[in-house]
């Protein structure tokens, strides 16, 4: 089973985590067309590659960010939101 390293709790099997999807910055709702808003809400960057994703460690209730290669399933680094990208 895949290992993911929680920045607080250390390396754990992926079954201890909940996947939160790719980090997607929200456009300013007030200054975005309907079309672009729908694009934000529904569309995803479905192509494979290295992505920054949300992950949640269930037992401790910790959200963190992970940079992951979605083809090789390789986690390059993890960090807490708001902290320096290591």
């Amino acid at each position, binding site marked *: *089973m*895949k*290992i993911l390293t929680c920045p607080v709790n250390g390396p754990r*099997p992926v079954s201890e985590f*909940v996947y*939160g999807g790719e980090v997607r910055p929200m456009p300013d*709702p007030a200054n*975005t067309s*309907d079309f672009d*808003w*729908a694009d*934000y*809400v*529904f569309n995803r960057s479905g192509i494979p590659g290295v992505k920054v994703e*949300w992950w*949640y460690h269930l037992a401790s*209730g910790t*959200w963190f960010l992970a940079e992951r290669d979605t083809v090789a*399933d390789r986690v390059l680094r993890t960090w807490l*939101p*708001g902290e320096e990208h290591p």
Partner: protein
Amino acid sequence: MSAPSAAPGRLPPVSGEWIDRSRTIDFRFEGVAYQGFAGDVPSAALWAAGVRTLGRSFKYHRPRGLLSFANHDVNALIQWGARLNLRADVEPLEPGMDLTAVNTFGGVQGDRARVLDLLGAFLPVGFYYKAFHRPRALFPFWERFFRRVTGLGRLDFRAPRLHTPKRYDFADVLVVGAGPSGMAAAVAAGRAGARVVLVDENARIGGSLGWQRGGDTASLERLRALEADLAALPNVSVRPGTLAAGWYADHWIALVDAVRMTKLRARATIVAGGAFEQPAVFRNNDLPGVMLASAAQRLVHRYAVKPMDRAVVLTANADGYRAALDLLAAGVSVGPIVDLRAEGESSGLSERVKQVGIQVLRGHCVLEARGRDGRLCEVTICPWDGQGNASTAAPQKVACDGLVMSTGWAPAAALLYQAGAKMGFDERRQQFVPAALPEGVFAAGRVNGVFTLDNKLADGERAGLEAARLLGFDAPAPRSVAPDLDAASHPWPIVDHPAGRNFVDFDEDLQVKDFLNAAAEGFDNIELLKRFSTVGMGPSQGKHSNMNAIRLLARIRGASPGEVGTTTARPFFHPVPLSHLAGRGFSPRRETPLHSRHAGLGAVWMQAGPWLRPDHYAVPGKRKSENVREEARAVRTGVGLIDVGTLGKIELYGPDAGAFLERVYTGKFANLKVGMTRYAVMLDESGVVIDDGVVARLAEQHFYFTTTTTGAAVVYRELQRWNAQWNLDIGIVNATGPFAAMNLAGPKSRAVLRAITSLDLSNEAFPYLGVRQAEVAGVPARVMRVGFVGELGYEIHVPAHQAGHLWDALMQEGAAHDIRPFGVEAQRLLRLEKGHIIIGQDTDGLTHPDEAGLEWAVKMDKPFFVGQRSVDIVRRRGLRQKLAGFRLDAASAAVAPKECHLVIRDGRIAGRVTSVAFSEVVGAHVGLAFLDPDLSAEGTPFFIRADGGTMVQARVVALPFYDPAGDRQKISG
């Protein structure tokens, strides 16, 4: 006790044998009694007893004997009671075993289905695609026929579920395969200080050191020395009888033994699983008596069974010569050695066999084997050109009861493939070998293309040291290992024969022509070939067939085996029982602290996610509907008590708490007064209603709110995530488990509560929708005046450890007022009468707030809330449906519609009932339904199609059905 000599094939004691001659085991096979020893396997004991037909093949039901003795003798699958598809070549013999061969019709000897062997000409590769569909009406007949003849073992439907506990385990280095290279690897890594686990699927370690002796005892001595080295290393755990069934990401390996699966997390993996000996392909190469040389050697050295009396050896490498010497040492009359190579064997073995008088025929092949009574009796030997063409002018017929084949090997590389290794075909060695290995994965020994014993040991040590160094252990730099130059595999161990029956895949009964024909039909790539012909799809997963299939396809395409490539080797390496995978089968469940009280009151449970909630409380002699109605009546006229502790509960603290709530809910909360509560609706970003609850403000900077039962975990999680982005100054605490909650409801609820609290319960001091913190029955409580069920009511939240005490106090005080506990079903009815929706029942995965009649709770004049922008878009798009209340016209209430019955207008679907129940207080069936917007106006009649197609007329009515002025929730007293 009958003498062991009852088994004529049993040899005198063989050094290193696995059997314990002091413990005999009685067993039966196909109704006949036999005897073996502890440490035996059925195939060995039966072979010793002279049994040659151990099973029948899958397609043609041909008799089959031993092939590999390496856990891919799939034609000798046996059944013992409920245990099906046991492999007779590896299953430990147990006292009392009553075995039968699988999938025979009338027993393995007289199998009536053997007639299929005569019909072979009608059954070409993929024959089932080519017939039986015309005429169409006959297909079900053919299908029934196929389902009768197909399949292997038979399930016993009375067999109980086995709970086999699984384990987790951890190691620095896992070594798979405890042959010479694996043992050497484990010793090297272990000496460097690594925590090593060494596994081998065989009952004992040693691999080829144990069975491939070449007629002397040197290898056995090497084995004992390595065993001693391992025993001296406490950090090396040696586990025979343990299969590495699959390699998964990050060195997560399924280790399967007789009793359980262990999930091992390693930091590095060394695959030293050796190689599978591959059959030569010639006519009747499946006759019992024809076997791989390694099988014969295992039979001799592990089980002390004489494989045959007179053996011909078909070979193309040194291993065949060693086998000849081993057989000779076991008293078998050996000869000739038929060497496919024109040049013959170049090592000293050639001289050794000459010395013992074994004839060698270089540049010859076996054209065909002939059998009598289902066993080998003769082989035909011809000179050949090494390319498949035999010179049949002067065939030499040799009478024999055994033919051992050693013409090639295929790497046991399944785990390497699973780990992502790239394998390349080495023309010189005629074998696929690792070309690129992922980090932390190593290969050693035969799987790495290394064959001679010294090299295998050196290669193992190299892998062990490399793994240890990678992990940071202090280990010397490994020496490089000189590659073996001789090919152990012949490039074309295949002799065609016009009459066929030259088998490539023994699992699936595939012959050479099947491959030619499949390729001719366009299935000329290895994956398509596999799918069309089913080569490698049988229980042995191609262990003895894939390599020859690749060679065949390569020749057909004029390519090299490397260009043809291999198919993907997916888990499992050998099949794994469901019970091992399932383990104990954990099913976590949650209980509110009041669970046992509900049980004591006769609760009938319903499942709500991980919770069991009381659906209603059974009163003996009454039907569910009566109980539900009475529970509801108690709430309407007296007092009831329901456990609502499964609701999600969240504490929210901090200066920005109000602002946070305004962002995540559709309503306004910054202006909520301390001591008051407000209904709250949550949307997702597409504007769909996903949750609701009640927000209570306990202090300026302290809110406490509820979520739905099923939404609890997700809502808490998502709120945490939002704030990870917004960084508002708040603290969020999940209080779902720590707080118990119960709703005391009904006109007499105040009287009950008043008896156990000093809190001023008057309307003035504690109005409807108010929240107070006070002691109730001595327990610190948060009390909310809520109206979900439409009566005066108090939702009381208390620390979970004290919930039972409070419940008891309420029930005790309530007794005088005939208090009744009520369940989810009564609550559903009561809230329906009040027109309150249940998210998930009266909404679905696409419901927008306006459709559910929640527009009043959506405050668009806020700067932002989740889903706001989407609500804006959807509102401009216009309503597609509308949730409305309805009641049935009294006359048609005899056939009551059910939830999810459809609203039909002019033959089209115009809506759906989401909730419906008979309401005693209304005196009619009432419900909620999604309707076309133009049907949703008050007074509009419409039809619901109920069970049996009965159309039931209903009419839209205003919500709520009960107490529209809301007086009941506010009654004073």
